[in-house]
């Protein structure tokens, strides 16, 4: 039994232009101790997936129409709101992309970390204050006694993300969901944060869903990858397999459009066109308008996610065949 099992998740939003489907039948699972990367362009539904797990879809305008999310054997979607809240923060934690926006500007950071303990009524052995200081030390913030009393705007971007991480791992959750945690940071800081995340995860042996569009980070952290496009998962694979042998044309395109250290190819091949308008998706396979392999059938039927080897699924009528 997987720790987290998502099946056929459908999430919609009402906008001025009509109802759009942000997630359209997303299914994947996460094993204990596993790091799963959700890979895709912005707007492909990665963050919505995280929001759905954390019960952060604002209704209205958003709504979860179908699907199940099994956590530790229980479908958590039908649970009363307060029970879901109890899971959040204690067993599933979320780290946001922009730590400045994600930290409350009017409270000291130490208070905000301590709040996690207070919300869940946990008092660690040495007391909450000591636990906060320990956490700050653990995520590499110098002089934690002084820094804990400071406000978010008094920290640098990297430091703020460290605080977010401290907050997320405070109760040693089973799953850490990191939603593009490094996107807003300088390149040099990015590596430190990825490193830190890896460290704290391993410390508590948590699972992690790592949402990103950065293939480099995926390669460094992930065990498995799920590639998303226009609200669907188009390919899941072991990280090594995906990098060596992408099957979906979109995964293939993603890899080809980024420089790689392990390849001699110097020419980059960008994917033509841009991400489709979610309110006005092409019929059939959403990727067909940008796909060199598309044929008539692609406009008629949506390709189902089909197993192609162990732990590997692809949704394409004409998958790339390994060379």
């Amino acid at each position, binding site marked *: 039994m997987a720790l987290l099992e998502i099946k056929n998740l459908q999430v919609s*939003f*009402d906008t*001025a232009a009509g109802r*759009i489907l942000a997630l359209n039948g997303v299914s994947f699972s996460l094993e204990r101790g596993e790091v799963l990367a959700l890979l895709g362009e912005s*707007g492909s539904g990665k963050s919505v997936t995280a929001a759905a797990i954390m019960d952060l879809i604002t209704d209205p305008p958003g709504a979860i129409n179908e699907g199940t999310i099994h956590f530790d054997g229980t479908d958590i979607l039908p649970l009363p709101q307060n029970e879901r809240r109890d899971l959040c923060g204690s067993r599933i934690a979320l780290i946001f992309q922009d730590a400045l926006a994600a930290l409350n500007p009017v409270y000291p950071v130490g208070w905000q970390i301590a709040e996690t303990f207070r919300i869940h009524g946990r008092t660690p052995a040495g007391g909450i204050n000591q636990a906060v200081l320990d956490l700050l030390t653990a995520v590499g913030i110098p002089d934690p006694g002084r820094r804990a009393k400071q406000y978010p705007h008094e920290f640098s971007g990297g430091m703020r993300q460290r605080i977010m991480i401290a907050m997320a791992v405070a109760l040693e959750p089973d799953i850490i969901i990191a939603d593009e945690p490094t996107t807003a940071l300088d390149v040099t800081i990015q590596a430190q944060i990825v490193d830190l995340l890896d460290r704290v995860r391993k410390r508590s042996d948590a699972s992690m869903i790592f949402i990103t569009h950065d293939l480099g980070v995926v390669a460094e952290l992930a065990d498995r990858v799920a590639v998303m496009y226009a609200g669907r998962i188009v390919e899941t694979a072991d990280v090594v397999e995906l990098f060596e042998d992408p099957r979906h044309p979109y995964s293939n395109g993603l890899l080809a459009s980024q420089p790689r250290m392990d390849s001699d190819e110097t020419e980059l091949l960008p994917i033509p066109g841009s991400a489709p*308008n979610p309110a006005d998706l092409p019929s059939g396979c959403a990727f067909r308008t940008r796909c060199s392999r598309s044929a008539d059938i692609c406009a008629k039927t949506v390709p189902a996610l089909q197993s192609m080897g162990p732990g590997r699924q692809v949704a394409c009528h004409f998958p790339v065949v390994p060379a």
Partner: protein
Amino acid sequence: MTETASELLNEREAANGRFAWFLRALRGDPMAVAATIWLLIVVLAIVADVFSLLGEHRISLKARNLPPFDFSQIWTLWLGADALGRPLLVRLIQAASTTIGIALVTVLTSLVGGTLLGVIAGYFGGFIGNVIMRISDIILGFPTLLVALFGLYLFGPSVLNLILVLAITRMPAYIRVARAETLEARERLFVDAARVFGGGSLWILRMHILPSVAPTMLTLASVNLAMVMLFESGLSYLGLGIQPPAVSWGLMVAQGQGYLSTAWWLGFFPGLAVMLTTMSFNLLANWFRIVNDPSQHWRLVSRRR
């Protein structure tokens, strides 16, 4: 999420035309619809009055303080008659053109003046900018009603003075906002780009600064329209605004005050008219703000609320 919604919205707008979009957005806000209907009625009534379609209404001391809701009378008397026997409904309509006319001219004056001064202060800064801002601070730092009151005593109550005094007391708010918006716009990349390409100050102001300042200023103006109406009513009520025989809603309330216990309708209906009209302007301003803020658009069209 919201960003994507706004992106596609712009495409839609381009496709369907702005007007159709407005109509659709209006449909999503029943209060805005009610406000629009009320304002349309008021405007139609004023137009009818301008073209003398309401008939002639002479002073008739016999019909003095005729009570309202006597539907056996001619329809103009359905809201009763005033202290000189003129149909209250017709008086209300005549007062509407004064009240709304003054509000519109005042807001337009302070909008144009305030935007210009604010943009100048923001774009050029320097000594002149400082002087403009300090003077606005002083005016703004003092209760608007008192400043207006003072001005009207100084220059005497007349329509022109009323407009000037209200426009000047409201102007600093526009100056402040326009300056802040200009400072922001000035720093934006495209202005730099324009500068690199050799655009003169005037060109930059006209092509880049003004268009980016305009939406905020218009929103401010729509809020102010309501505020100015309230101020005008208050001043006329105190006897400093519109003077008889001219008539405005505020003045009608003041005149009706003497009949509070004998003919309540004389003061009640004009006050109600002020409230409904002010409220309509406020509601439309609200709606206008949402229309101009793409992240709020779903409120206007969502079927489930």
